[in-house]
């Protein structure tokens, strides 16, 4: 089952970082060691405001199909709707995403809900 293809109403992206560690000498000079060549720990938060319950339930179904936070998956281009720059979602061969936590569904009125999804980039 693929991730629901719905344009989000809000999107927050944190590109993550490369694994590295900083060391400070007694003099205060800083030295950094990079341990990897891949960026990791990217975070993507998506909010889908006031969507029909049928669409909201697709997120629950997808979450179940991924065994919650266990499996990683590829995101559709719809998550970048409205972004006119080049895609900042890394190629799936470099990074995929998994759920950081279960999607939350806020029932707004009968038949209408708001869904919030927090995803984590997985190398």
């Amino acid at each position: 089952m693929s991730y629901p293809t719905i344009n989000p109403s809000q999107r927050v992206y944190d590109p993550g970082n490369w694994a590295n560690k900083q060391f400070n000498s007694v003099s205060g000079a800083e030295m950094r060691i990079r341990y990897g060549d891949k960026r990791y720990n990217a975070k993507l938060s998506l909010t889908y405001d006031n969507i029909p319950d049928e669409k909201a339930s697709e997120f629950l179904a997808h979450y179940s199909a991924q065994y919650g936070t266990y499996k990683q998956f590829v995101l559709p281009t719809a998550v970048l709707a409205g972004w006119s720059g080049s895609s900042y979602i890394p190629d799936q061969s470099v990074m995929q995403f998994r759920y950081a936590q279960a999607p939350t569904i806020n029932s707004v009125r009968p038949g209408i809900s708001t869904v919030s999804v927090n995803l984590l980039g997985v190398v």
Partner: protein
Amino acid sequence: MSFSSGKDGRLYIDGQVAAKVIDWSISTSVAGLDTTTLGDLDRTNTAGIRTTSGSCQLFYYAVDPNNTSTNSASVLLNKIIKANSSGQGAESEKVLLRLGIVDGSSTEKYIEGLCLITSAAMTMAVGAVLAASISFEFDGAPRSMYL
């Protein structure tokens, strides 16, 4: 077809025609829920919660001064204002209001529903007749209507 004016208005309180009504008004609004998504250029929405509310003014006038139930303004005031009894006032009551239009047709036009009185005000002043201003909000959808 005919025009309607104040002489054609009626207000019923719990099924009884109210006396000495100055005016009534009713308003219905729907809160739009924003469904605009990233990439959209124009705002989109879907219908949210609907609210029907209104107001009316009645002269503080009793057909029988010894019987407050013949004073329509008093009837409404007593629905919301409750005197202290064993420490606190009783809960405000809801009232069945029917706003009618007698337009000359065989069936009166109306909108009727159970209402919560949300405010009541009276001002006593020199040179003015005492009247009550009442605001109300429908409890859910109107029970029935024919407009």
